[in-house]
């Protein structure tokens, strides 16, 4: 399965990502992209796994909502169409370096503190680490944006995918009341 081009869906919904796949454009939600295990465009598989691991620990549900696909997709969008919260936050585009350097710092700080890979942390260790990174740079966190800022950004991205969709509103018993609904996900063009 080869993805030759990814485009930002201008007509599709907030969380509809479009993929050119086997000669046709498909629109998938990040969660559907995750289910199909589509390859990433900008992130490496390792970076995507770290995003999902940390994002899901901060906002439970973010991984299955397709957090890594969402971020990956946004990283290949033009700044003008980019929907990442980062565009509010005085970080100059392009944003891939922001995530890459923060994830590398995350991995090296975990290694320094626990001598483990992030995926091998216990729940208690992960909770302690997140509590620490929220306040200041943990030891070994270097060559990256400040840890509390990365926490804030990743948490916001994770909240977007987990709680910003029509289904998520529904699960919180919040009526969506759209004037113009974000487009729905599953659509195949010839």
């Amino acid at each position, binding site marked *: 399965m080869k993805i030759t081009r990814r485009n930002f869906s201008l007509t599709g919904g907030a969380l509809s990502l479009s993929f050119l796949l086997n000669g046709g454009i498909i629109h998938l939600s990040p969660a559907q992209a995750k289910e199909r295990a589509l390859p990433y465009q900008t992130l490496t598989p390792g970076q995507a796994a770290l995003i999902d691991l940390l994002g899901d*620990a901060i906002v439970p549900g973010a991984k299955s909502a397709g957090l890594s696909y969402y971020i990956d997709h946004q990283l290949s969008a033009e700044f*003008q169409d980019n929907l990442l919260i980062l565009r*509010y936050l*005085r970080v100059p585009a392009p944003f891939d370096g922001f995530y890459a350097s923060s994830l590398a710092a995350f991995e090296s700080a975990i290694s320094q503190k626990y001598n483990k890979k992030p995926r091998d942390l216990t729940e208690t260790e992960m909770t302690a680490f997140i509590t620490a990174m929220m306040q200041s740079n943990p030891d070994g966190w270097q060559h990256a944006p400040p840890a509390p800022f990365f926490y804030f950004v990743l948490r916001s991205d994770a909240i*977007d995918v987990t709680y*910003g969709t029509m289904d*998520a509103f529904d699960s*919180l018993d919040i009526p969506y009341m759209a004037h113009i*609904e974000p487009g729905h996900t599953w659509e195949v063009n010839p």
Partner: protein
Amino acid sequence: MTISPEKIDVVIVGSGAAGSLMAAKLSQAGKKVLILEAGPERKLQDLTSSQIHARRLKWAGDAVTEQGAQPVGNGFNSGYGTGGSALHHYGVWPRLHSEDFKVKSLFGKGLDWPINYGDLQPYYDRIQQEVGISGDHQAEVWRPDGAAYPLPPVPAFQQSEIIARGFTKLGKTTSPLPMALNSHEYNDRPGCLWDGWCDAGCPTKALANPLAVYLPEADKQGAKIIHQATVSRILTDKSGKKATGVTYRTAAGDEVTQLAGMVVLAAFAIQTPRLLLNSGLANRSGLVGSYIMSHSAASVFGLFEDETAPYMGPTGGQMLNQDSYDHKDQRPQGFGSYQWMIGLAVKPNDLLGIGGSNPGLFGAKLTDFMKTAAQHFGNMTACVEDLPLAQNRVTLSTETDQYGLPLATVHHSADAASMALWQGALEEGKQIFKAADAREIWTGPLGPMHIMGGTIMGETAETSVTNSYGQCHDIDNLFIAGPGLFPTSGGVNPTFTVHALALRSTDYMLKNWSSLT
């Protein structure tokens, strides 16, 4: 370089709040008007109801570097494309108060405006009739003189009613929030549906954004708009005392000269001074770029026993309190004015959403919080005055755009008295929430809200960039419109005043057209 063959009466830079009003008024008077808008074309049907999609409406033009202890937040506070920031503004439209115009003479701080409230009052009255503000002028016991609002107030949903109990218990007053949105149908625009999607841009025209009111009128009168046309310089004749037009870049990068009898800069508080500085114009005072201001948002959040339906209502809020407005020198701490906007409608995500309000929560605690807060959340925000300081300014960066034109740098560090006022507002807010029986109370970090100043109006060419009509002191046919003209910020949202000032300017231009051009 291409020269557009047609000389027009007036070229307006920017299609936001100020530019769209001026285009409508000048074209109604028979002038040939062209708006040049840096951003893309946006239509009502592009305004998807989603906090994530809403981000596409934000500034995506030339990069702005921000410095200082309290940066102005250009990425959040500026829009781009048809309608500018105003396309997704929340329509909270209170008036400035008399004191706001005379801060220097009354209190020895800040600056004075070259006009007073009485000069602007008729324009506030005309605009509110034209645009349709919903409110209750009698319940707004603090409001300066003026006509009654043309529309009944926005309703109070549970959230604001519950918070209002706290104000009442502490002997404070609340009123409906004056809003430039229709509580019921008005001027062929429908009533609001109270769904809280204003931040994504209201596509129904219930909210008076430029696509709902002044751009359609400008279009009807024959005004033209070119999108993805970024103005880079203002042109003058050899004397330097008369503007002759502008140059702009098209999306393809071509440079076009547009000649015009009158030039209006309505490119908001950062890009307008950048344009003047890059053109080397209207800066005898050395103050182009100076006195940039931004209100500080003091946000108070709480969870209540009762269900609050926090998703209901307009994004900007439902109720108002201005007890801490007049007598700027009589606050318990700090100096200035602020108002509370009570019961802002929230969504689960985004910076101003439920999740964003409490960034220290993660994991299972966040999941629980989201479930509870979805039904029991309450919030209010104070719009806190920012004293004008000359050193808070837009300057040209050493970095340039792709065509070699210097970019803008904005420095903003608030005065200690403004910071103390913000802190005082937070303290008051917590007491109010306590009195309203919130079972949990927390506050947000300082957030910048609205950008003003940078091309201030004043009495003389030595102390300001323009006169009270936004006319540059040195160049009779070069006008500035927008909140960049404000010498002080007051503690209210700026856009009603932006409209009133722009209407006053167009009256003046039209009355003096032949001598100005």
